[in-house]
């Protein structure tokens, strides 16, 4: 198998080392897909000019502490580490982007967010905005998770609430409290801080640990509906995973990425308690749930379930 010999891409990422963050997941997926097009150089925080292996990449330090922001220190020789003419995917603040944009030579700039200089925005979520290049992503799930339910619970068909982490010991997050109070006979499973708690009729019925991503997928895939109270702003990864398993999602109307998924795939959004309860009530109807499930799965599999299609979309975007 020959190495791809296309144009080089330089990924400048502030989130690269924050492995548990959604942004790191997105940037790493984009960088990985870009290796099918041509050589990829990754620049991130760390001692200047040092190179460190990280999976398929050699990560080069920029000599800046990313915890303090993304402003390159005076005297940083960016041109020395960035190949001439390479396209750049910038996951950094506008100041750093400006420094990159001022480099000599011809560099095409791409970014994940708006406002990063003159960079073209690569969209991982379909949004009704002009000037974005929708590339999607590959969000893998293990289909076997749908075969075997989570060991800790015998229930299936529950309302799954992915918490924003605001709950306290013995107290569910607000959304779960409203749902278990509004639907007395419904099983409500709350996932918070790697623990899944089962609530029914306003009372805690049991807890179990969520030890792995597969555990989470098991919980997601056997839920009637997934309420994500704090979806990630860039991708809303758990929403995508839920849709890939055919589990309808209910998300805050103010969550940018998740609301976009909902708009595109027939998911439900809520802007207040009453709308949240209405949305859960709708999903308790088997016909409605079935329709939402089919639409969500079709949408998510098309945009996030096909790695080859994702690589092609990314290549076309970078070469456009």
């Amino acid at each position, binding site marked *: 198998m020959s190495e791809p010999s296309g144009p080089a891409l330089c990924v400048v990422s502030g989130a690269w080392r924050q492995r548990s963050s959604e942004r790191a997941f997105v940037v790493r997926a984009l960088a990985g897909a870009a290796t099918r097009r041509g050589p990829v150089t990754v620049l991130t925080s760390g001692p200047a000019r040092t190179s460190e292996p990280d999976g398929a990449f050699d990560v080069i330090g920029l000599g800046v502490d990313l915890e303090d922001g993304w402003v390159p220190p005076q005297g940083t020789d960016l041109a020395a580490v960035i190949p001439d003419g390479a396209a750049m995917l910038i996951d950094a603040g506008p100041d750093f982007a400006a420094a990159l944009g001022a480099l000599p030579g011809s560099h095409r700039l791409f970014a994940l967010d708006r406002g990063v200089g003159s960079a073209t925005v690569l969209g991982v979520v379909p949004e009704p905005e002009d000037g974005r290049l929708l590339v999607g992503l590959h969000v893998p799930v293990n289909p076997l998770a749908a075969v075997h339910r989570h060991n800790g619970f015998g229930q299936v068909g529950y309302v799954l609430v992915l918490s924003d982490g605001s709950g306290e010991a013995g107290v569910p997050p607000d959304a779960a409290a409203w749902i278990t109070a509004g639907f007395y006979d419904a099983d409500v499973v709350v996932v918070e801080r790697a623990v899944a708690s089962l609530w029914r009729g306003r*009372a805690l019925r049991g807890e179990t640990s969520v030890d792995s991503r597969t555990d989470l997928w098991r919980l997601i895939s056997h839920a009637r509906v997934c309420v994500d109270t704090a979806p990630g702003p860039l991708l809303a990864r758990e929403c995508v995973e839920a849709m890939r398993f055919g589990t309808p999602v209910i998300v805050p109307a103010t969550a940018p990425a998740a609301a976009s998924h909902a708009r595109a795939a027939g998911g439900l959004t809520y802007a207040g308690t009453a709308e949240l309860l209405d949305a859960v009530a709708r999903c308790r109807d088997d016909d409605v749930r079935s329709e939402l499930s089919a639409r969500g799965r079709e949408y998510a599999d098309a945009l996030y379930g096909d790695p080859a299609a994702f690589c092609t979309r990314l290549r076309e975007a970078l070469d456009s």
Partner: protein
Amino acid sequence: MVAAMAREPVPDMRPVSGAPPAREVPPKMLRRPAQAPPPLDPIREDEQVVGLHEAWARLHGVSEGSPPAQWQRVRGKVRRSLPFVGPEHDLLGGLIRAVDALAQRCDELAARLQANEELTEDVADSFGTDLTQLRADVSRVRVELDRSTP
């Protein structure tokens, strides 16, 4: 009670000024499930109570395989004859009657408890659900009013 009310503000109160409304206080959770557990088994059918009667019957020559009608006859006969068979038998017969009476009362209390538990569950279900929906609707109306008020 008053002290607690004084210490704790009412976060659901609508602000006088144009400040954004406070976070909606979610419904309180129950420390124990309100769901009615399965009914208790009748204690009169308990193995030990039944065994007591069987032992008593055996003392008076009735085997375990005797037909029920015979059991009933023997039990009645024994009870009627207790005052005439000596103080121990009298005491024992009285004890068995007391056990019977207590078992019957326990079963009646268990039935009443079951009824109360079912009522509690129904109240928690219907009132809890209705109140939650009502609060959510009030919240929605409040938001719509705020939007429509210049």
